[in-house]
C-alpha cells in the first residue's frame, strides 16, 4: 500500500499523541490512585445518620492527623450541612491551613446535587444512595466558594458554602 509522505507524518503524530494521552491516564489511575468519586460505597438515603460519617456530631471539619483533615457533609435541597459551631449556628465556612490534605465525604438525602469547590479540583456529583469522596491537597491560599453544580430544584442557587485556605 502506498502512503503519501505527509500521511505518514500525520499518522505518526496521531499515534504518538494517543500513546502519550494513554500513558498520562495510566499514570493518574495506577500511580496517583485517581478513581471515580462515587459509586464505590452505598448508603440508605432515608437514614444517612446511621452511617458513622454522617452522624450530626461528625459533620463538618475534623483534624485527623497533622495537616490531614476530613470534612463530612450532608447535602439536601437546598443546603450543605457542615454541622454546627460552638454557638449551635450552622457552619458555612471551612478553614484549613495551606498545604493540608482534606478528604471531603458527602452524600445526598434527596436528589442529585453537585459539590464543587470552585478554583480547586474538588468537583463531585452527589447522588442519593451513594457516598462521594474526594481527597485534595489545598495548595493555594484564598477563599474558594462551594457551589452546587447539578440543578437540584428551585433553590439550587442557594446551595453554597466557603473553603478558606490560610
Amino acid at each position, binding site marked *: 500500500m502506498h502512503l*503519501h509522505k*505527509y500521511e505518514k*507524518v*500525520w499518522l505518526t*503524530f*496521531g499515534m504518538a*499523541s494517543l500513546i502519550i*494521552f494513554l500513558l*498520562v491516564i495510566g499514570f493518574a489511575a495506577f500511580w496517583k490512585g485517581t478513581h471515580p468519586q462515587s459509586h464505590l460505597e452505598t448508603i440508605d438515603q432515608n437514614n444517612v445518620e446511621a452511617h458513622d460519617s454522617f452522624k450530626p456530631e461528625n459533620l463538618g471539619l475534623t483534624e485527623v492527623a497533622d495537616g490531614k483533615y476530613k470534612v463530612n457533609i450532608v447535602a439536601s435541597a437546598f443546603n450543605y450541612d457542615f454541622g454546627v459551631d460552638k454557638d449551635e449556628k450552622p457552619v458555612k465556612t471551612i478553614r484549613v491551613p495551606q498545604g493540608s490534605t482534606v478528604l471531603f465525604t458527602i452524600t445526598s438525602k434527596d436528589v442529585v446535587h453537585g459539590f464543587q469547590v470552585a*478554583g*480547586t*479540583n474538588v468537583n463531585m456529583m452527589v447522588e442519593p444512595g451513594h457516598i462521594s469522596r474526594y481527597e485534595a491537597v489545598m*495548595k*493555594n491560599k484564598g477563599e474558594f466558594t462551594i457551589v452546587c453544580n447539578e440543578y437540584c430544584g428551585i433553590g439550587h442557587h442557594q446551595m453554597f458554602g466557603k473553603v478558606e485556605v490560610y
Partner: protein
Amino acid sequence: MTKKHVSNKVPTPEVSSNLKGTFIMVMILGFLMVGAWFGAYWLFISR
C-alpha cells in the same frame, strides 16, 4: 432524448496534487488539539 457521450479516449493516470497546504492545516489542527489537552491537564495539576 439525451445522447450518451462515449469517449474513446484512454484514461490518463491521475496527477498527484500538491498536498502541502492540507498538511500544514492538519498539523495546525493537531497541535491545537494537543495544546488544548495539555492546557486542561496543566490546570488540573496546578490547582
